[in-house]
């Protein structure tokens, strides 16, 4: 395969907090400034802008360009929830390959907290507000409790096996100053936490919070020396399988073979996996559909791996959303930010040694029962 020269040349992340300390545009601007610094670029080098933020409407990418005071030849606003940021980055790459822009700033984030999350999910889309909210459904916690139950009954997965994801990631979060939950957590802590929507307990559920991430997509040779990240392959698939309320599969099942074939690598070649982690069950489902193990083999795979940054499968090496918090649509970019940080060898105490390549998978946009979107990318240190 021919390697694309377009990749990620900079990344930025704002501080995370349980309550907003400013405006959404302020947070997005802060992430953007940090990403430009990381890319060694100035504001004037940017000629494309893409944004994912649930709370941005009635604003959009073009009005954000006005706020930022930049003129752009490419602008787009993305909606695929937790899959949106990976899909947004892939679209920016295609726009550059097509000659539409040379350097696209992709930003994502929200002023999320428990109340904002509650308000958003009650009116997230027509199907949910019309046919789930009148049942008091419990928000995503209730919906993903159904998926988790189904996974346990279909495959025999146990709470303890799911817990290995949360516990492993918490060990990584201890080394991430920006993680809101970074105190130690044992398996007993996980298993005995407050029941939220059975079988989901407190540490199965992400903490809504405020923050933003940004990446700059451009020709990799525009990055500071040794800091470019190449995109080996990427794919997305939404609303698969259609017509199911709580399926145990996502769109990745359809693009998995193409994703790996184009990358020239397989799951075993990845030195980390940044997998959208709104709930542990969705990490298990994405790992299966991305080919880490065979159909229904999650229980054995989860039992045999250690998911900390220095474990047998470094997973969400900054602690993931389960430990850092979920910044609304920014939750779709935290994995991309962490991947780029790792591949630039800037992850400090949690740096995966000698890392050359890894996987980022985004998932989300809850419809009538489950997240509809899936987008994944294989990245390599340039």
């Amino acid at each position: 395969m021919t390697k694309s020269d377009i990749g990620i040349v900079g990344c930025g992340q704002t501080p995370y907090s349980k309550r907003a300390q400013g405006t959404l545009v302020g947070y997005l601007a802060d992430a953007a400034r940090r990403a430009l610094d990381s890319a060694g670029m100035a504001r004037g080098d940017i000629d494309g802008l893409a944004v994912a933020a649930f709370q941005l409407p009635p604003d959009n990418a073009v009005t954000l360009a006005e706020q930022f005071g930049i003129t752009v030849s490419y602008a787009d606003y993305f909606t695929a929830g937790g899959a949106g940021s990976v899909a947004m980055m892939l679209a920016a790459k295609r726009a550059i390959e097509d000659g539409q822009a040379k350097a696209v700033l992709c930003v994502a984030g929200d002023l999320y907290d428990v109340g904002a999350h509650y308000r958003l999910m009650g009116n997230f889309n027509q199907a949910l507000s019309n046919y789930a909210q009148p049942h008091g459904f419990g928000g995503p916690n209730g919906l993903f409790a159904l998926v988790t139950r189904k996974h346990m009954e279909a495959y025999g997965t146990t709470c303890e096996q799911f817990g290995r994801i949360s516990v492993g990631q918490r060990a990584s979060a201890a080394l991430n100053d920006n993680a809101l939950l970074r105190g130690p957590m044992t398996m007993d802590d996980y298993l005995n936490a407050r029941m939220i929507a059975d079988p989901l307990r407190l540490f199965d559920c992400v903490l809504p919070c405020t923050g933003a991430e940004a990446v700059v997509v451009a020709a990799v040779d525009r990055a500071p020396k040794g800091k470019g990240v190449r995109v080996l392959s990427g794919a997305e698939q939404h609303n698969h399988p259609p017509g199911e309320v709580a399926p145990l599969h996502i769109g990745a099942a359809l693009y998995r073979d193409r994703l790996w074939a184009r990358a020239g690598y397989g799951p075993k070649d990845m030195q980390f996996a940044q997998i959208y982690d709104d709930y542990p069950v969705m990490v298990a489902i994405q790992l299966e559909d991305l080919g880490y193990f065979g159909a229904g083999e999650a229980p054995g795979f989860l039992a045999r791996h250690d998911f900390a940054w220095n474990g047998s499968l470094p997973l969400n090496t900054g602690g993931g959303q389960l430990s850092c918090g979920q910044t609304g649509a920014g939750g779709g970019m935290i994995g991309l930010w962490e991947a780029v940080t790792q591949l630039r060898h800037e992850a400090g105490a949690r740096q995966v040694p000698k890392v050359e390549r890894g996987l980022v998978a985004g998932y989300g946009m809850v419809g009538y029962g489950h997240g509809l979107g899936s987008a994944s990318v294989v990245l390599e240190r340039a």
Partner: protein
Amino acid sequence: MMGDMANPPTYPQPREDATNAPLIAGWREGRLMLQRCGDCGRAFFYPRPMCPHCWSEKLAWFEASGRGRIVAYSHVFKPHHPAFDAEAPIVLIEAALEEGALMLTRVVGEDRTNARSRMAISLVPMPEAARYPLPTFVLA
């Protein structure tokens, strides 16, 4: 069934539109109305202006049996609206209706926490049905 029959909680309501009006009108009389496609023959939920299986516009409403089975369930301790708090834990289920459609709904009643996957369910009968905004079930 539970609580004060004369003063039901102010549950959030579905927004009635040209597509879902027969569902909402039917449930006011305690009937579960579904759409069936005149071309591919499949019944589905939630209401749509075209068949999600084949895009046909030849859709017909019919009264479903009101029977089905639980596919998956959860006891939800924090409902997504305060109107449900007095009933917590609410029992959220994915239901497979006899006609083949899948539905997110609730099992209500004093024995609701006995709900398990594959159990048979049936519609809440009138007059209790009128209390709920959308078709709601009890253990059969």
